[in-house]
């Protein structure tokens, strides 16, 4: 970034950018849609952290949720891909330029139905990106069909009663050993923000399954994906704070009640324990927690699982920092000498 930091101007972040610089086009979603509140948090967080928009790509599939990338960060390249296919396009993009950061926004239909295969394979490959699922238990854009995350017994005006077992996308993510799995609620702005910040600092795929009510088709009181339900039932497994650098946590913390997770390039996640003793670095515990929440119909939120030991796909492929896209032609096209030798070998 060329813009200099104008000292003392609190409206500018460390890149010298105003929050307005992180805005997108005006939203065309229904007013009150959970997706828009997540969009606001993305803008806030990216501005606060000073994420470079010119090094960010905004990715999505198809759905109301997948429209969101048009509504934040106009200064970042975006790609509204195909229904359920955000993972593959992002994989190609991030392999072509590993210096980019990717924020992807998908829906529960986009990820849990048509895109479940690509979702799982993205996690297997550990492609660095923040993968947000704006989960409303319904297909918004096609007007009110059940999605695969709808709980048993849920009712929709258009679709009747759901009889099928839901797919828990966090459980899917943990079972694929995705190294950053969190659940949150669009109505819990602070938690969404802290999780987003942590996810943006995570090196690998970070999945955020955010319950994001569809005010038009699925916000009735007895819907487990509604605002009233979320507000009444959300149970945080811990209080999460994102701290940008170690210097900032001079304050003493009690290891009995606070867990510290150091992220790979410096920042820290501080997890203040609430009622239960939960260690998000334990994959078995994460699966158990999710299973139990399921059985007890609990709506738990927080950082469910973190594992920083896996290599990303570009690391596995030993890719350079320079984007493959930026390699000069001398690096891409072998020389005439190499060619002549090859032809010589073929003629031998």
């Amino acid at each position: 970034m060329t813009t200099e930091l104008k000292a003392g101007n609190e409206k500018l972040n460390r890149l010298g950018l105003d929050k307005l610089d992180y805005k997108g086009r005006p939203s065309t979603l229904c007013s009150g849609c959970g997706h828009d509140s997540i969009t606001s948090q993305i803008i806030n967080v990216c501005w606060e952290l000073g994420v470079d928009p010119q090094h960010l790509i905004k990715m999505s599939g198809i759905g109301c949720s997948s429209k969101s990338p048009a509504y934040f960060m106009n200064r970042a390249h975006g790609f509204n891909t195909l229904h359920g296919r955000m993972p593959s396009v992002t994989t190609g993009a991030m392999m072509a330029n590993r210096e980019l950061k990717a924020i992807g926004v998908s829906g529960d239909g986009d990820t849990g139905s048509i895109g479940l295969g690509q979702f799982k394979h993205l996690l297997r490959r550990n492609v660095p990106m923040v993968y947000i699922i704006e989960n409303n238990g319904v297909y918004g854009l096609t007007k009110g069909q059940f999605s695969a995350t709808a709980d048993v017994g849920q009712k929709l005006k258009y679709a009747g009663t759901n009889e099928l077992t839901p797919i828990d996308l966090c459980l899917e993510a943990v079972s694929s050993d995705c190294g950053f799995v969190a659940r949150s609620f669009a109505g819990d702005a602070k938690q969404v923000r802290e999780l987003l910040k942590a996810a943006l600092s995570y090196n690998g795929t970070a999945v955020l399954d955010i319950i994001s009510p569809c005010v038009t088709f699925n916000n009735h009181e007895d819907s487990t994906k509604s605002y009233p339900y979320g507000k009444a039932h959300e149970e945080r497994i811990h209080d999460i704070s994102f701290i940008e650098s170690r210097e900032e946590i001079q304050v003493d913390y009690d290891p009995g009640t606070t867990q510290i997770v150091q992220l790979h390039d410096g920042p820290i996640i501080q997890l203040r324990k609430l009622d239960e003793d939960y260690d998000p670095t334990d994959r078995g515990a994460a699966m158990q927690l999710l299973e139990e929440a399921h059985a007890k119909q609990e709506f738990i939120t927080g950082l469910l699982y973190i594992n920083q030991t896996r290599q990303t796909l570009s690391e596995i492929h030993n890719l350079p920092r320079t984007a493959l896209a930026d390699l000069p032609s001398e690096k891409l096209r072998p020389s005439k000498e190499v060619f002549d030798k090859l032809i010589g070998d073929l003629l031998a």
Partner: protein
Amino acid sequence: MSALIEQPIEKSERSDQPPIVNDFTINVATVNGSGSQTANATIIRALFKMGIPVTGKNIFPSNISGLPTWYTIRVNKDGYTARRDSTEILVAFNSQTADADLESLKEGAVCIHPQDVVLKDKANRPDVIFYTLPVKQFVKEANVDVKLRDYIANMAYVGVIMELLGIEPEQVKAALQTHFKGKAKPVEINYNMVNKAAEYVRNNLPKQDPYKVERMNATTGKFMIDGNSAGALGAIFGGVSFVSWYPITPSTSLVDALNDYLPELRPEDENGKATYAVVQAEDELAAAGMVIGAGWVGARSMTATSGPGISLMTEFTGLGYFAEIPGVIWDIMRMGPSTGLPTRVSQGDVLKTYYLGHGDTKNICLLPSNMKECFEFGWRAFDLAERLQTPVFVLSDLDLGMNLWMTDPFDYPAEPMDRGKVLTAAQLKELQGKWGRYEDVDGDGIAYRTLPGNQHPAAAYFARGTGHNPQAGYSERPDDWENNLARLAQKHDTARTLVPKPAVDERAGAKVGIISYGSADPAVVEARDQLREAGIETSYLRLKALPLDETTREFIGKYDHVYVVEINFDAQMRSLLQLHTPEYATRLIAANKCDGLPLTAQFIADKVKQGEGKA
């Protein structure tokens, strides 16, 4: 069979025949998975090294082992390489098919078979010359590991053929050395078997047939390669940096070749880092998605697949066409519909691929006919994809892709890489950030793009499959929609002028034209000579790409009849030609065949003779 009948009969009578030199077809019938590929490749390489034009075509089943497979080796002094229907020398090593194989032999042909392949009708074919071998005994004597026995057994027919035809033993040995990359042990084991069989023939089976080979000078400066390797090499010299794929016959060996050659030809950079990545996707849908993602960010990205995979790439192709993103997709065509005949050749994806997508899409398709073009289109496809900002297909096929073809050396790309219209941050600064992603500034239908990571604050745009205006903003306005499609059509017209031009060979006095493409070419070349001898002079236009151009229209306009030769059931290219030149629609005569086999010259010549009333 009793040993008595196996002894040569009527020997003297036949040896009077004049020799037939360097002009015959060997058909090797074996069981799939028995390792006959090594034996066949050895014969071909040895003949090639003797300077004799030769081609091999593998007619194999969709099976790992057990089903019948045929390998035809055509030796032809005039350099014809197309498949022929008739066989002069049958190697009947598969008892499942031996009787039928024998039945299909023409009069006076040769049949080489192991003792234990019992031929029911042997007695009824006194015209056929039989050479019977105690292969089991050879194998026993060879005393090798059980696992190697089948492979070794196949070497017996190499020995017989070597001895009977007069192939130089040194060349057989050299071929084995090439095949086993110089490893002494396997070369020795295999060559011992070759030798043993040759010796047996020398001592026990006097030559009765007229077929023989003689050294020529027709292969100097050439080499043999398959189209998938040639295509992979082309892609490497085209600077490929991202490959995503999902295994499917007959395209898998293209990616295998990339994996084989890339480490050697594109070694790690000075920091020990790779300059490319090959990712095996979970399916072709994801493979196409990754190609589009990498192409959007600016990498030279490609995939290779076949018909079923192309079907799965449909939606992404439409997105690539409409959001205008480069990418290269090789379709090594095999026989459909559906799983069809997955190990047999076809040119059945022409219409589908040209129009792949939904709504109004038209894609650029390159149509290589030989090894040099597989290589050339391998790199050129990237230039075209980036210049035209769209997916580019290379339509090869199983025959080109998986069989061994003679070729002159390839040419190093004469032009520097064309990265197309990409605005850098500096250029944007000069433009004061004023640009429109889908704005046609130059009047050729091709707009400018920026790549993610560009540091100019106005560089970003939103790629989407939804309706958009020249500034890439979402739009449902009728005029925006229409204008955009019109620009895409104009871009397609620009493509007409950029894709490789057809190869045209016009003959004075010809009233008949032939249009063909891809692997049908060798049969056309040979058929034209046959037709000339029969008094029908022809002109020939070989297509190298879609969209079709003006040359093709002019060509069709000159001839009363234009036969369109292709390997599919629906005469697909003829349909495209008719759409392109409706004024000549009735001149275009389908000369198509679709039986899973490479075309023969005979078929084409007969078709034209029939059409011209000279059958």
